[in-house]
């Protein structure tokens, strides 16, 4: 065995060792947390939605208002440092709802204040929101175009 091969074996062995020591994600516990917190966030949104419907908004207005309110809450709780603690426990349960989108925006922007308010905060606000909106816009435009050509 030459030196190179020996090195390969050592690297593979080392990786195996790490796999054994590395803490395995507690799948069941994580899933229960994600389900519960994610469900709770949606439940809260539904309570607000139902309230807005009874106060005279139509379904589309109420849906938009709920999205705005939830985004506000997500951004505020991130600023206060509360939301990141929720994400630690709930994982995807706090990331997948729209509050998690707001969290990603604020969390990435806050770190870059010292680079200024225009090209620091103003740019980094889109480090996660940019790709997310980009793929949403690209697919929605494609869907719209397909519809146009199917109808034609």
């Amino acid at each position, binding site marked *: 065995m030459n030196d190179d091969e020996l090195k390969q074996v050592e690297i593979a062995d080392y990786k195996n060792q790490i796999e054994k020591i590395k803490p395995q994600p507690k*799948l069941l516990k*994580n*899933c229960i*947390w*994600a*389900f519960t*917190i994610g*469900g709770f966030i*949606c*439940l809260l*949104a*539904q*309570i607000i*939605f*139902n309230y807005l419907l009874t106060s005279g908004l139509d379904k589309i207005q109420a*849906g*938009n*208002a709920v*999205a*705005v309110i939830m*985004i*506000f809450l997500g*951004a*505020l709780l*991130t*600023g*206060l*440092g509360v939301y990141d603690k929720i*994400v630690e426990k709930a*994982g*995807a*349960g706090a990331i*997948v*709802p729209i509050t*998690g989108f*707001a969290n*990603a925006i*604020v*969390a990435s*922007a806050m770190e870059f*204040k010292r680079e200024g308010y225009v090209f620091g905060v*103003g740019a980094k*606000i889109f480090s*996660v*929101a940019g*790709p*997310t*909106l980009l*793929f*949403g*816009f690209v*697919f*929605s*435009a494609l*869907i*719209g175009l*397909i*519809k*146009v050509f199917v*109808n034609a």
Partner: protein
Amino acid sequence: MISLLTAFLIGGCLCLIGQLVMDKTNSSVSSGHILVGFISGGTILGGAGLYQPLVDWAGEGAAIPLSGFGNALAQGALKGAEKGIIGAFSGGVEATAAGITAAIVFGYVMAVLFNPKG
């Protein structure tokens, strides 16, 4: 009352799917990937007409996860497409404009007001 239960269950299930993706794949799947995945999936399913029935049934449980935001984009684009190509481009953003503007405005305000903890 039933609307609260379906919102909780469906919202919980969608988040559960996200958690399974995070835990069952390698650690290079970040929260950003989850957000991009959900909005893309929601837009495509919405365009195919498969997501809106879930929103009609589960309300905010399907609308608040980011896949619901994607579905709103797709529904807007489909509606705009009835008015032609320009409508296909403008429809998606029109339908979600309130949420997108709120995210950017509140995101900026909070990032300026608060400093990172720890």
